[in-house]
């Protein structure tokens, strides 16, 4: 087992013995749960590798593949829906030329849903690589993507 994984897991376990906390810590370090990370979890928690996959695959925040460079998550809560999340989604799909749950061919942008992110007072809300953007409109979508250097 690689020492970097041991260090990450030990640090997480010092705060809480919950398996999910260690999973988050490993994913934060590498962007996703690599095979080696899953192996390390199995060894430190003394559970089969299949059990690690069994648990992790249940949770939408945990993943086993490298995410897009810029991960765009759109809140699927009903407040955002009422406030026009559909239009925001349509704008992203148009400008990036992909559908939801997809990644652009160059791997730069990925478009996903997120759970209700609890910013219902400023809906529609989205997360871009974890950073919060609220009161989104199609115009703001264009500004956001253009700032990222992508030309229409």
């Amino acid at each position, binding site marked *: 087992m690689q020492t970097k994984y041991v260090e990450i897991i030990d640090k997480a376990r010092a*705060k*809480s*013995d*919950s*398996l*999910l*906390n260690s*999973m*988050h810590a490993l994913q934060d370090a590498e962007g996703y749960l690599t095979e080696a990370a899953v192996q390390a979890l199995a060894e430190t*928690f003394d*559970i089969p590798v299949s059990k690690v996959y*069994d*648990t992790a*695959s*249940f*949770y*939408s*925040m*945990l993943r086993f593949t490298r995410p897009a460079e810029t991960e765009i998550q759109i809140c*699927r*809560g*009903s*407040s955002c*829906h*009422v*406030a026009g*999340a559909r239009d925001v989604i349509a704008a992203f799909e148009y400008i990036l030329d992909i559908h939801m749950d997809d990644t652009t061919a160059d791997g730069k942008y990925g478009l996903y*849903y*997120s*759970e*209700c*992110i*609890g*910013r*219902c*007072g*400023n*809906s529609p809300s989205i997360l871009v690589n*974890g950073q919060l953007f609220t009161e989104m409109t199609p115009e703001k979508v264009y500004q956001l993507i253009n700032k990222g250097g992508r030309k229409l």
Partner: protein
Amino acid sequence: MMQELRLALRNAGTINPRSIDDYITAGGYKALTKTHNTKQSDLIDMLERSGRLRGRGGAAFNTGLKWSSAYQAAGTEKYIICNADEGEPGTYKDRTILESDPHTVIEGLLIGAYAIGASNAYIYCRGEYREVIRLLEDAVSQTKQMGYCDNVTIQIAYGAGSYVCGEETALIESLEGNRGEPRLKPPFPTIAGFRGKPTVVNNVETFAVVPLIVEQGAEWFQSIGAPDYPGTKVFSLSGDINNKGCFEAPTNITLHDIVYGFGGGISEGHRLKAVQLGGSSCGFLTPDMLDLPVDVESLRSIGSALGSGAVLVIDDTHNIVDILVGIAEFFVHESCGKCVPCREGTLRVMQLLKQLAAGQASISVQDQLRDLSDYMSMSCFCPLGQSATTALCSALDLFKEDFSVKLHGQEVH
């Protein structure tokens, strides 16, 4: 109009949430000290009988009853968990409470730990609330440094994006390192919960008011709000309303005061069409139902529920079917897949609603939807599936026109 009354949010905006000194200066941790000179049974009795504090997470179960069940349960290894897995769409009250005053929740949790005799406490916070998690971890280490934790260990456990983990047995499964699938009840967690030991799970808002009840007494608490559901409730306003935000008021407040008082009504030129109270798992209310107080019993009388206190306001620019499609997609995604009626039922409901929204549904679609709802509410394993079509059923009753417009392929605005 009814005034705002802040109990859970009493320190919001007036103290620095990062400073335990601020909380202590505002009278914090006095209740915990007082608790340690009170007999456990007296403390529980106060909450259970006279205080009648009911859970603020959605199910409105008597908090004292949970505590007394766990207190009386056999064994010495017991657990107490704060449910901060706030996932009900439209709800952001727990985030607001934790962001503005984490220590009141920690103090409530420590009082609960003392009451049931637990030496291990967890705060299960949803993974989406990264900032809240950091704030809580700091707050807990401050509490420890100041010696308030005594012999109780508090851990902050992270969720990872699962709505059903808000259900207490699914939350416990998740905390044990498993898939967040709900357990069969009974046994209830207070008898056999986390690691098979007696466990109390309470909501953030519930814990937040516990220190106040201990300090000011059960009679004081009982005198606020509706008799069967005393105290205050924190509401999260969203949707087509002028003032969006969280506010707290006594539980005998009417929906009318919430929408037109605190919410400032809806924007000019539009008409209020519906209010969805309690989140996506609850039904719709029409403008003529708004004069009712929001306490549990009053709402039950019209077959509604307060749920988490989410207030989603919908104006006349929306066809309710379009909103139902969004809700149906949500439940398809969140169904854990453990039981067939929910896994398949949520999918079929979504397919039928999407056909309807696109004007391609068959004339019998409403009957099909009702049948599906009946099967699901009767046979789904847990409250997620049982309530996945609550909004749909209430819409079928209340907004027949919207369905008929979609059926006949013409939009009205």
